[in-house]
């Protein structure tokens, strides 16, 4: 499938392929069909993370060029970052020269901002923790002044922040757009509301999708921060009780909700945490019945997550159908709705082999990356 090479002028032109897993059918239509595909009482859950300008170009003390792509939002003064050598998004990440070898204590200088290397990953030296020289509003201001949206070489022009924000964008936790919501217009959302479809949100720090290092790529997605508010837990419980469906807008929402359910011992609980959960074939779902998603390659972690909803053979059929229809891939591409209401019942037998990879705090002491409303 070819990637979409630019943001769409009109999101309503996004095509929608609907995969009915129970019936093993794939139907082609347009994104606006959601207004009739979803039923009154169904619950859509969006990721309300805004996208940070997470690509920072700078220099080392020795004057070598380096690009730091933040892997998540700053926490206090600190942020995880992936480093690249000279060049920019116009080069494929795998063709980029490696970053200069850095050690703890080394300094990186960005426009109006200085960072010190606070940690270097033992297995992947290009993955570091940066400690910036400021925090709070001053750090956010500096990041927004120095950064550009993370983007990849298949795009034809530099992105503006306008291009990467979804209609739900609130706290800037994402370093790549939670792009499944990009095709949604307010017109469509108001029509869904009129129909009785409910909308709730989680915040999930959607991370980097490509590192340029095959070994590191295999570990994607890296651990990501998420938060599930109490109102969303309530809305999910209402939907389940009424027998209505919970539809995740994007794989990050699946990851947040299913991580929070695992952290709650199988029951969705409000709170925030960091998840390393990797969903794939055979992963039980506790919360989500369907996922609205972009189109991605069969070898991606994104595709693997969809295997928690549909057998690989049916997803490969979806991929073939999408190619045949000249659908476009990646963040500005076309969409699929994978409906698979075969969720595990509460207390059902399941094997959560990755429970230990979810660290969830109900009202945990948090470092204030971004203050929350104090109500």
């Amino acid at each position: 499938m070819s990637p979409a090479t630019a943001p769409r002028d009109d999101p309503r032109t996004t095509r929608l392929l609907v995969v009915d897993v129970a019936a093993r059918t794939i139907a082609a239509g347009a994104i606006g069909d959601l207004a009739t595909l979803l039923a009154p009482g169904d619950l859509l859950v969006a990721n309300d993370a805004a996208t940070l300008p997470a690509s920072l170009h700078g220099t080392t003390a020795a004057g070598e060029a380096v690009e730091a792509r933040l892997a998540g939002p700053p926490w206090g003064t600190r942020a995880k970052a992936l480093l690249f050598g000279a060049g920019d998004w116009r080069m494929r990440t795998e063709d980029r020269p490696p970053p200069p070898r850095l050690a703890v204590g080394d300094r990186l200088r960005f426009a109006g901002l200085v960072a010190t290397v606070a940690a270097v990953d033992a297995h992947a030296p290009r993955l570091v923790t940066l400690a910036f020289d400021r925090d709070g509003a001053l750090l956010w201001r500096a990041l927004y002044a120095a950064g550009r949206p993370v983007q990849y070489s298949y795009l034809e022009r530099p992105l503006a922040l306008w291009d990467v924000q979804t209609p739900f964008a609130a706290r800037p936790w994402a370093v790549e757009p939670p792009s499944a919501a990009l095709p949604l217009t307010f017109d469509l959302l108001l029509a869904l509301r009129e129909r009785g479809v409910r909308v709730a949100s989680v915040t999930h720090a959607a991370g980097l999708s490509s590192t340029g290092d095959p070994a590191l790529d295999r570990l994607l997605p890296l651990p990501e921060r998420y938060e599930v508010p109490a109102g969303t837990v309530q809305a999910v419980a209402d939907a389940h009780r009424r027998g209505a469906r919970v539809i995740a807008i994007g794989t990050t929402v699946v990851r947040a909700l299913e991580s929070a359910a695992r952290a709650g011992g199988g029951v969705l609980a409000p709170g925030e945490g960091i998840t390393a959960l990797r969903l794939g074939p055979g992963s039980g779902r506790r919360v989500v019945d369907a996922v609205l998603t972009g189109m991605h390659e069969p070898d991606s972690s994104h595709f693997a997550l969809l295997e928690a909803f549909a057998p690989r053979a049916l997803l490969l059929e979806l991929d073939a159908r999408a190619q045949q229809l000249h659908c476009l891939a990646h963040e500005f591409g076309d969409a699929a709705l994978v409906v698979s209401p075969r969720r595990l019942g509460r207390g059902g037998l399941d094997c959560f082999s990755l429970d230990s990879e979810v660290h969830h705090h109900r009202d945990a002491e948090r470092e204030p990356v971004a203050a929350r409303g104090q109500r």
Partner: protein
Amino acid sequence: MAGADYQRAMNTPSPLAGRGILITGGSRGLGAMLARELGRRGARLLLVARGEADLERTAADVRAAGGEAHACAADVGDRDAIHRIAGIAAAVLGEIDVVVHDAGALGPTPLRLLADTACEDLQRVLDVNLVGPFRLTKALLGPMLLRGRGVIAHLSSDAAVEAYPRWGAYGTAKAALDHLTRIWAAELDGTGVRFLGVDPGEMDTAMHAAAAPDADRSALARPADVAVAVADLLGDPSVRNGSRIVIASGVAQR
């Protein structure tokens, strides 16, 4: 100071306590007074204006009085600044409950006849007074709709209604802003997000002095009094979606 109103505000918990509020044009004039008033009422503020020094001073004043205020130096007339403002606001405030679009530009002073107004000057006045508020609302609206709650206020002027000679650029922009208030309100009625236009009346501000240097200052309302009236409107759920409220001599005419 409207003493009774102030006492009322001080003695009863304000409906704005704890709310996240973004104010553009928050460094000087009415915006600065409104920041002080809302800070006193316990709101959590992000102030936006072009002039960093004035902005930092106003934010520091709010904090010195026990309030919470953060500063974000930016030009609301600049398209590229919009998601920077929205992102920083959400990062430091969390939920944003109220947006006050107070930033305004007159264009070059002394004011000129429309026929003498440079096309670029009209464009700039429209960018700051009309297109900027539209863009910023667009960027902040989604989470408000998700929560089913929010107030977006546009500061207008009687120049939006009366055709004052030499106020062409400003008056045209404010008239369009009034209509923007009404159309936002009509399209989003019933969602819980309310839009409100406020004509604060003639005030003794630097902007007024630039536009009308010969005015009798004693006849002008004090921005601090007007700020109390505006703050009352922002916290009042009975204010009808899409309404335009005139404040005369510091008192809302309702």
